[in-house]
């Protein structure tokens, strides 16, 4: 077929490359990532200058947390419902759902993650610049949900990325998502800019 020959890459090659990536990720994701807990160094905290800078930075960060568009399944539509006229996530400065992870700070994983999709999640998470946070929305993102014993579902997003806030529900109401976001704001408030970040160890991919 002449159109087939116009494709720069053969689709079998692309499929095989994708499949190798998925198998590698399955092998590497046997243990869940530990939930990040911000350890605040007491010595550092006593320094007033650092505290003032911290408060300013944290204030700026939590009032304009830009999420990445990562709606996977049904929870995505409760996320959209939170963003539109009635529940209005714009009050929190978050109405800008960035299509590109490089411009975002929050990864809102909403819906069931399958092994086929997992490399894409890892890639999007790696592309985000520090500081970044992950919110797992819905039963499927937390633990696999009603599909936990399926052959193709990841039993919990924390096997792939470390998660900061878990919002349970199937799907969680927009008010529940907003509650989770406010908890994340409170967590960000306790953060400090002197914390060792992932960027220092590995370059941004």
């Amino acid at each position, binding site marked *: 077929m002449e*159109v*087939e020959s*116009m*494709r*720069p*890459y053969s*689709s079998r090659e*692309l499929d095989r490359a994708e499949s190798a990536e998925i198998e590698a990720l399955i092998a590497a994701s046997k243990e869940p990532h530990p939930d990040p807990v911000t350890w605040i160094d007491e010595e550092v905290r006593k320094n007033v200058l650092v505290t003032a800078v911290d408060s300013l930075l944290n204030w700026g960060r939590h009032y304009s947390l830009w999420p*990445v*568009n*990562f*709606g*996977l*399944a*049904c929870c*995505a*539509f*409760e996320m*959209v*419902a939170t963003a*539109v*006229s*009635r529940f209005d996530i714009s009050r929190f400065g978050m109405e800008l*759902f960035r*299509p590109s992870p490089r411009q975002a700070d929050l990864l809102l994983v909403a*819906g*069931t993650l*399958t092994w*086929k*999709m997992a490399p*894409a999640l890892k890639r*999007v998470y790696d592309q985000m610049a520090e500081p970044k946070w992950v919110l797992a929305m819905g039963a499927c993102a937390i633990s696999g949900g*009603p*599909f936990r*014993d*399926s*052959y*193709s*579902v990841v039993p919990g997003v924390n096997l792939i990325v470390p998660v900061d806030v878990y919002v349970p529900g*199937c*799907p969680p*109401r927009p008010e529940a998502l907003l509650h989770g976001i406010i908890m994340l704001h409170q967590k960000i408030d306790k953060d400090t800019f002197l914390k060792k970040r992932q960027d220092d160890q590995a370059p941004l991919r």
Partner: protein
Amino acid sequence: MALKTEPVMINFGPQHPSTHGVFRMRVTFDGEVIVDVEPVFGYLHRGIEKLAESRTYTQNIPYTDRLDYLASMTNNHAYVLAVEKLAAIEVPERAEYLRVIMSELMRIASHLMTVGFILNEMGAFFTPLMYTFREREKILDLFEMVCGQRLTYNYMRIGGVSYDIPERFMPALKRFIDEMPGYIDEYDQLLKENEILLARTKGVGILPPDKAINASVSGPVLRASGVKWDIRKAAPYSIYERFDFEIPTGKMGDVYDRYRMRILEMRQSVRIVKQAMEQLPAGDVRAKVPATLRPPKGEAYGHIEGPKGELGFYLVSDGSPNPYRFKIRAPAFLNLTVLRDLFIGWKLADAMVIFGSIDICMGEVDR
């Protein structure tokens, strides 16, 4: 001087802003013109058909909600219809009327979402979506009044529905149905004669009727191509014969017709709900069905007209409480068969508009 060009392959990756879910397309371009499309899906394949074989018939009802999660009521309806066919269960009158009211309200909600997203893809960044979601929230409030959930209802049961409607439901529904034609007029007024909409959708992505039939397309996409085929009229299920409504069809099968179908179908759904409200009888809302249903050995295919097309469930029973085979005939999956034919020859900017007009939901495509 002849310009030397090379085809470029762009990956519309599984994570992209057009919120249709996790869908991937490898599109080959010659400059700006699309020459080939390869849809890749399976990014939301959760193995529902396999999981259903280890659950009982009633435990499978929540799984059906999560198929086309934008139209959970109609999914429930199709499944319980198939089980009732399999086990020969009669449904009481009041339950049938409630099912019809819920299904038609669901159709309106789903089409509101589709209209909002088609316009979103055209670049009307979220404004029409805000308007249509305003009405959709009213419908979701009605559903919450009845069964407590906003998105995945699990409302219908084998032999009826799970709860009767509370007293404040009917006045709220009446208020909504009286206002709804006014809202549809508002959308029409803003959009029907809009130059940008007409320029970007008229004549774009034409699907000829014989191709649509051959590709097993169903729902508004099929009707936009001029084929008058709607399961509610062709093979009436539940009590649809008692209602007076029309089946709108399109003339050309372009994106504009597919968009108009949804607006016209919303008007017809309002008509059906009005009639159902007037005729609603008193009585039981659930037939007496054993707690662990063991249908006799056999098979049944139950299908309905969902907002995306013909949704069917093919169930094979071997006499045990779990289905032996639970097959879902997903309209969105089959509607994607024509994707390649619709895209080729159009430009990059038209691609997402055509894709949005087919209106898929990944939960259904991948199951």
